[in-house]
């Protein structure tokens, strides 16, 4: 039972880490290596709003989502647009931005173990003899709602359809009058908001530390590679595969090997099926 419960929670957490990264890559083929840094930054923004500006939790959540979204959009407009299409440069530039954010936070005094966000619901309940706290249940419920919401957004709204058009064929989308740079700004803003969303949901379970930015990035990349770069549904499925594999590893082999699961998943995927589970475009390239 604990495998089912905590496997699901772990999988949803991984999906939340990865969704923003998958969305940005899926739409504008931009590997945003600043994703983990934006996750940590949004945690500190929320913390500052609650503890320094003394705003209530709901205001802090909304403001954090908006501010992080704007930061993501600005990062694209000011820096990443200049290297757009040059994949190695995109990786280097976005990783440099990540370093600047994380090291800037550290330099600014955001270090130590005492930065935390409040949980939305206090308390715990027992499911099948296993105690689970409400915040973790909330993570699963909200995570599922978010995936459903994203699907609806990309299938039934004009902006969502434009984003999908970009994801499928950027040149064709351009011919149809879709502003690809504007859509990339929107995608980057949305990807950053998703990072903030994950932070607001998951950070109350622990504490906000600068170093977690690197871990979140590694996990997001692992999920996206296994799922197939650019595929959001692939990312969700991969999150469940890796999430349950991690929990099974902890139960039967030991927690020590937990991090290896994600790294081994990357290695095996690249050896056996480099396009990942749902990486259709890359798969076509592989066949050629």
């Amino acid at each position, binding site marked *: 039972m*604990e495998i089912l419960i*905590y496997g699901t*929670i*772990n999988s949803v*957490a991984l999906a939340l880490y990865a969704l923003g990264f998958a969305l940005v890559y899926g739409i504008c083929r931009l590997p945003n290596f600043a994703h983990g840094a934006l996750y940590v930054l949004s945690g500190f923004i929320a913390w500052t709003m609650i503890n320094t500006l003394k705003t209530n939790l709901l205001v802090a959540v909304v403001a954090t989502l908006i501010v992080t979204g704007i930061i993501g959009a600005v990062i694209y407009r000011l820096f990443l647009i200049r290297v757009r299409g040059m994949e190695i440069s995109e990786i280097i530039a976005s990783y440099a931005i990540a370093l600047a954010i994380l090291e800037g936070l*550290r330099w600014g005094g955001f*270090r*130590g*173990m*005492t*930065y*935390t966000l*409040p949980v939305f619901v206090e308390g*715990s309940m027992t499911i099948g003899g*296993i*105690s*689970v*706290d409400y*915040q973790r249940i909330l993570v699963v419920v909200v995570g599922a709602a978010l995936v459903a919401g994203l699907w609806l957004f990309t299938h039934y709204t004009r902006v969502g359809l434009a984003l999908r058009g970009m994801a499928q064929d950027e040149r064709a989308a351009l011919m149809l009058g879709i502003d690809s740079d504007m859509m990339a700004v929107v995608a980057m803003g949305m990807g950053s908001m998703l990072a903030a969303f994950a932070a607001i949901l998951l950070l109350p*379970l*622990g*504490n906000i*530390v*600068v*170093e*977690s930015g*690197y*871990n979140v990035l590694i996990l997001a990349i692992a999920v996206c590679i296994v799922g197939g770069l650019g595929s959001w549904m692939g990312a969700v499925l991969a999150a469940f595969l890796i999430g349950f594999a991690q*929990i099974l590893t*902890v*139960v039967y082999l*030991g*927690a*020590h090997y*937990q*991090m290896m699961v994600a790294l081994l998943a990357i290695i095996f995927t690249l050896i056996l099926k480099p396009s990942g589970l749902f990486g259709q475009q890359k798969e076509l390239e592989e066949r050629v």
Partner: protein
Amino acid sequence: MKTTHAKLMMILLIAVLMGLSSGSALAEKPIVIGCPLATAFLYGWDAERGVTLAIEEINAQGGVDVGGKKRPFKIEVIDTRDLEPGVPVSEALLAVEKLILDKEADFLIGGPVRSEAALAAMPLLSKYKKVSIVTTGVLTPKYHAMVAENYDKFKYCFRIHGEAKNLVGEIFANFADLKAKYGFNNLFIIAQDVSHARGAAEIIKKVATKKGWNVTGLEIYPTGATDFSIGLLKAKKTNTEIINIWMDMPESAILLKQWYDMQIPALPFGSTLAAAEQPGFWKATDGKGEYTLCNVVNAGNAPSNATPWTMKFYEAYTKRWGVEPEGLGTSSSYMAVYVLKDAIERAGSLDPDKVVAALEKTDMMGVYGRLRFDPKSHQVIPSTDPKEGAVGSILQWQNGQRVVVYPKSIAMGEIQLPPWMGK
């Protein structure tokens, strides 16, 4: 009138001379103390603050008497980053070498903080003949064992805080008390995947089994792990009564939050548990960390009356930094500067071999008891009585306060159990 003028002139002259004499210490070439520390982490920044406070106090008193000349101390810090996950040991070695070559450090105090990095730095210290006093982090018994095994090569290395074997002894003294009082017999061990923690966890497992404890499990978590639920459930399933924790990563706070949220009926007993050492732990866990025990290695890192100097230091630190001494490395880093000053003054020189000889003869009453080094291994001599040696300190979070519960000679309270343990 004339006598009043003469008196005034005399007072002015004395004042000028006094100013000149204290200024002359500052005018002399400073003795550079290099501090290789992981400054983004508790064990790094508290050590830096401890060293800085001691240097400020010593310089305010005129500095260090080196063969009749008063010279001030000067601190140089380089971030070793050795407590960060994924940062190679070579980074810390570069920091040590840079302190020696670029910053021209005369002595080293502090780290490297991670045991692996400190061990790797030992040959560098002998290469450059730099006396180093390790004051924070480094808990591996191998450090002083290496000095004892190869004294001529590693004689420049000293450690002024307790090490893993002391911590193990202190833990079992408490476990024995808990067994006698509540009949506890089931022990679960959780450790971080780093040298000192892995090693100590294995030692605890062996010793506990020998002492008749039922070790219900040993889980080793990678540095940076953020979910401990399965390990905690294993502890609960096996009727564990004590969870022994060895972790210095910030995420250890998550473990304790999960312990509370899941209402695990076992006492969290941290040996190294950096998150719980800090005064901010209570707020960071919204009080969920109540009943957590942790070892801050030496007295003075939590309030107690171990020696007359303990609370004097505690208050001076709090006044200077606006926060109480936060954990392992604070009082030991502070005392290392005073011990070095004492050794330099007795040696009358900065010559490393003479200072080593003087350090071996150190015998002074400090913040955490009587400070002496074992002349063969250069490890500070531990004791449970501050009059005999360096005393440790185990605290428990009780009602928002860090209450020292061990050793009995300096305890300010007794261990309490969480209500959901039903004892």
